[in-house]
């Protein structure tokens, strides 16, 4: 029933990896900033921002994709501005698939990073202050390295989850072979086509293997960094 992976699987795999990598690369700095603001800053509306960041966890992914279309579609205000000024088109492109994935996996990343930041001993930052470190210096030399296990965990989890993002991607970026047809989209397409059962099964097994690999890698990486910190 199963055979060696064909070009369709390889292409879907390559696209999934590309989308996940770009999504993590784009959202990681933003997630660190958001985690910092939510943990350390005190301002009115913090609760609202917190809820907003977590929204993709509870919304139907199709709704998230639809909102993205309303904002970044070819005729939408942000979409046409990006096209006119930067020549960037998001809807129905690989970049768009990465954006949709980034939005969907953002809460996972923020949660992991935030947990790590909350565990950073403020006393160490105070010690750095008495040694002459100004705020940004303190963040880069003390806080960030101590958060590293959480940042890595967040990034790898978001990456693994991003490989399988379906609803938001298909709504915002459609199902274009070679452009936005990632693993789950290819799997869905195979299931819908007559005689695609064998392909669907191979794609499903591939997704399982990737997910497992991603989660194991995350755990091992975090353990290694923790050991270096003496935890």
């Amino acid at each position, binding site marked *: 029933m199963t055979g060696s992976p064909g070009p369709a699987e390889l292409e879907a795999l390559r696209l999934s990896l590309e989308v996940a990598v770009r999504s993590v690369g784009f959202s990681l700095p933003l997630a660190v900033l958001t985690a910092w603001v939510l943990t350390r800053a005190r301002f009115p509306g913090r609760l609202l921002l917190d809820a907003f960041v977590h929204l993709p966890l509870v919304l139907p992914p199709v709704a998230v994709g639809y909102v993205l279309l309303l904002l970044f579609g070819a005729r939408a205000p942000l979409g046409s501005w990006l096209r006119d000024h930067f020549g960037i088109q998001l809807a129905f492109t690989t970049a768009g698939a990465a954006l949709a994935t980034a939005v969907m996996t953002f809460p996972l990343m923020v949660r992991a990073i935030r947990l790590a930041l909350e565990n950073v001993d403020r*006393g160490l930052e105070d010690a*750095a202050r008495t040694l*002459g470190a*100004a705020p940004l210096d303190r963040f880069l030399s003390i806080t960030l390295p101590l958060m590293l296990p959480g940042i890595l965990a967040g990034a790898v989890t978001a990456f693994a989850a991003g490989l399988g993002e379906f609803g938001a991607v298909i709504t915002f970026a459609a199902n274009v072979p070679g452009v936005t047809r990632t693993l789950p989209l290819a799997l869905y397409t195979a299931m819908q086509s007559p005689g695609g059962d064998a392909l669907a099964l191979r794609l499903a097994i591939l997704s399982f293997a990737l997910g497992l690999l991603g989660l194991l890698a995350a755990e091992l990486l975090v353990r290694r960094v923790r050991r270096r910190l*003496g935890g």
Partner: protein
Amino acid sequence: MLKQLGAFRLDATFSAPTPGVIALFGRSGSGKSTLVNLISGLLAADTGAVSLDGELLTDVRRGIAVPVERRRVGYVFQDARLFPHLSVAGNLRYGERRRRHVPTLIAYDEVVTLLGLAGLLQRRPWQLSGGERQRVALGRALLSQPRLLLLDEPLASVDVSRREEVLPYLVALRDRLSIPMVFVSHQFDEVLRLATHLVLLESGQVLAEGAVEEMSLYPELQSVVGPDLAGAVIEGLVTRVNPATGGAELAVGSGTLQVSLRDVEPGARVRLQLLARDVILATQPVQGLSVRNALRGTVIAIAADEAGSVLVRVDVGGSIVLARITDDARRALDLRPGNAVWTLVKAVSTRGHAFTLARGS
């Protein structure tokens, strides 16, 4: 300087000569750590001012609050607070790198030698003992080239048996460097060994301040250290040493004292505490006693002590000694201020309380 923390209110004013080692001494909860945090700037004062060598670091009324990172006030925390992601060398260099633009008071190699850190440089903080951790924290603070060093109970988190891994280094720093230190403690032993100046705190108030010798006679200090550790701190000059017996002869006031004291040279000035409970008074010279020390003096005051006893202050020719005797004994001897007395101290009872004093103090 004033700070309200919930129901606790700190209202303290003190000034101290620099250089020197100032001990902030008092029971836990008396406001010692709060005061140190106000000096460092880690805690903002409600009112008041902090100035160092004539420069205002904090002045609430004038809106001055120099940021902690620009104060050049070193801080050795109770729990060391070494950076876990850096090696010992990385921790030491952390402060040094950030103060390249200020005049160097002490260099890296000097700190490593002075604190005995050469064998630890590649280790991680979690591979160090409590005492080693505090020495690294001390070195890290020193390399940030501070104008003042704050030490918040640096020995509290170190096992009692390991305190000797830190204390002698603190003494060495005091004697070798000219950086003034403010040292928080509730152990009088540490104060005796380190401090030149003592500020006594109680419930957020400064009860008294002054030189350690002077403060040792202060009744409120005795109430903090407890009756068993009450006793005058006196200074003496080593006139003779006997390495074979570990004994030394000290010139104290107008007399001499035999004490158990190792590792001193003739000519050294030492400080020792004569515990009031170990000092015996006689109204005439005594013979046929095993006690080696008899200092001639004059009673200058008699104060009530705990129930049934009194504390007698005796001037032994410039130095003052405290003796605790029972009220009955005072009546039997008819002791009054002005009386001539002999002060008897066993050589061994001064043991463990004699320390070499800093040069110039």
